[in-house]
């Protein structure tokens, strides 16, 4: 394996480990030595990959945004109806919340809750564009095909993603009486009914 490939793999393992720790223990309670210990690497070496905890935090949000965006991209490239695409996106989001809860938890409990960490370098949509771009394409396609009602982007985006984020937050707080997958059909239908043309 080439050195560059090894470094890329190491970089990703740091991101995944830090993601896990930040999501579980919180951003401020997690230190760089904690992450280095878990990875069995030296603190100094970790700093070779990420020059600060804030930079690492910013790279993680880009990483999770890209990962989620990549899955929605597959939906966008399919020939499915708008109703079907909504169902697929809800499924992707809730499945990720179930199988890789740290991905969504990080967004809700680190990214949204520690804005000062992201104010320089992750302004606005800069670090979440991988995900936002695919949501924009989803809305654009579904309005162009006259399946969804044409309206301001943010009024539709807020309804869709606010709803999903809220449900995952409730799941994280352990207040949902049922498994999150149980809600996929009803929530997909609710979103479609709210947005349809």
């Amino acid at each position, binding site marked *: 394996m080439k050195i560059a490939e090894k470094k890329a793999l190491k970089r990703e393992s740091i991101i995944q480990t830090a993601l896990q720790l930040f999501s579980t223990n919180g951003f401020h309670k997690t230190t760089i030595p904690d992450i280095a210990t878990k990875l069995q690497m030296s603190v100094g070496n970790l700093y070779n990959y990420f020059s600060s905890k804030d930079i690492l935090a910013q790279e993680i949000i880009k990483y999770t945004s890209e990962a989620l965006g990549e899955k929605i991209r597959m939906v966008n490239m399919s020939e499915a109806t708008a109703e079907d695409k909504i169902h697929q996106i809800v499924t992707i989001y809730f499945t990720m919340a179930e199988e890789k809860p740290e991905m969504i938890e990080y967004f809700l409990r680190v990214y949204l809750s520690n804005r000062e960490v992201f104010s320089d370098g992750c*302004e*606005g*949509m*800069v670090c979440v*564009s*991988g995900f*936002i*771009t695919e949501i*924009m*394409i989803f*809305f*654009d*396609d579904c*309005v*162009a095909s006259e399946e*969804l009602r*044409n*309206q*301001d*982007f*943010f009024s*539709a985006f807020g309804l869709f993603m606010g709803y999903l984020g809220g449900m995952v937050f409730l799941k994280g707080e352990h207040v949902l009486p049922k498994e999150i997958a149980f809600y996929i059909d009803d929530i997909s239908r609710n979103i479609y009914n709210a947005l349809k043309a």
Partner: protein
Amino acid sequence: MPKKSKVKLLWLQAITCNGNTHSFLNHPDLFSILSHFEVVHHPTLESVYTMQDVIAGTVPCDLLILEGSFIQSGFLKGGVEVSQLIETYAKRAKYIVSVGTCATFGGIFKQKDPENISGFAFDLEEKTSRYKMYATKLISLPGCPIHPKWLSYVLLMIANKNKIAIDTLHRPVELYGYTVHTGCTRNEYFEWKIDAKNFGLKEGCLFYEQGCQGPYTRGSCNKILWNDTSSKTRVGTPCFGCTEPTFPQKSLFRTKTNMGIPAKMPLGVPRRAYLTLTGVVKSFKIKRFSEKLMEYDR
């Protein structure tokens, strides 16, 4: 030394508003340019031959300039189908220049009878049955109207026996290789996605709300300025895409958007790339772009 014979220029009109004729008359060097040619017939300028001579089919012709939309039958001059007149001289000519979007693609007048009215060699972007016969001598100059200097570029290239590089729709690439967006004074606002809030304002880009088609319209309007002074977009009016085969379109003063996303992307730009950039750029507020460019009443 024998006198160099001049290229014989015949300007023929089909279904037209005379817009291109009038535009060309505004050329500041009109007579200097025409001095390179023998104007055998022109609808408004003094000519060697009359329209009756043209109809009789006896006029010599090296360069045929066509203005106006084409219809095979039902449009007559002096009792003769204009389509026949055009074909008579098109065969004789060494160069055929279609001036204006009507003569090139069908344009405004095509709206009257879309089935039967077209450009001479193109019907929108499709080649007409005449295309094959005349393709080797065909130059397209779409525009509504054309800029007088677009035509003078072509005329002087012909007069000097220079080769004119053209694209697949036979448009000179020197003139149509650019988009109207190129050279627009609002480009900084486009880059930073700042909308123009109204017409006639100096600030803001007209692409996002005001219907500007400049980023996906081919033309030199912001490179070769109108009246040597300005352009539509510079003074705050959206580009109407008048050089494109799809001209005219509806709702020229409003950008069609799907949930705020422009339905048509800048020429050749993938939507995913455009939206990624847009999301990033819109995350920043640049103070200078929120201010008036100039204040006179301070």
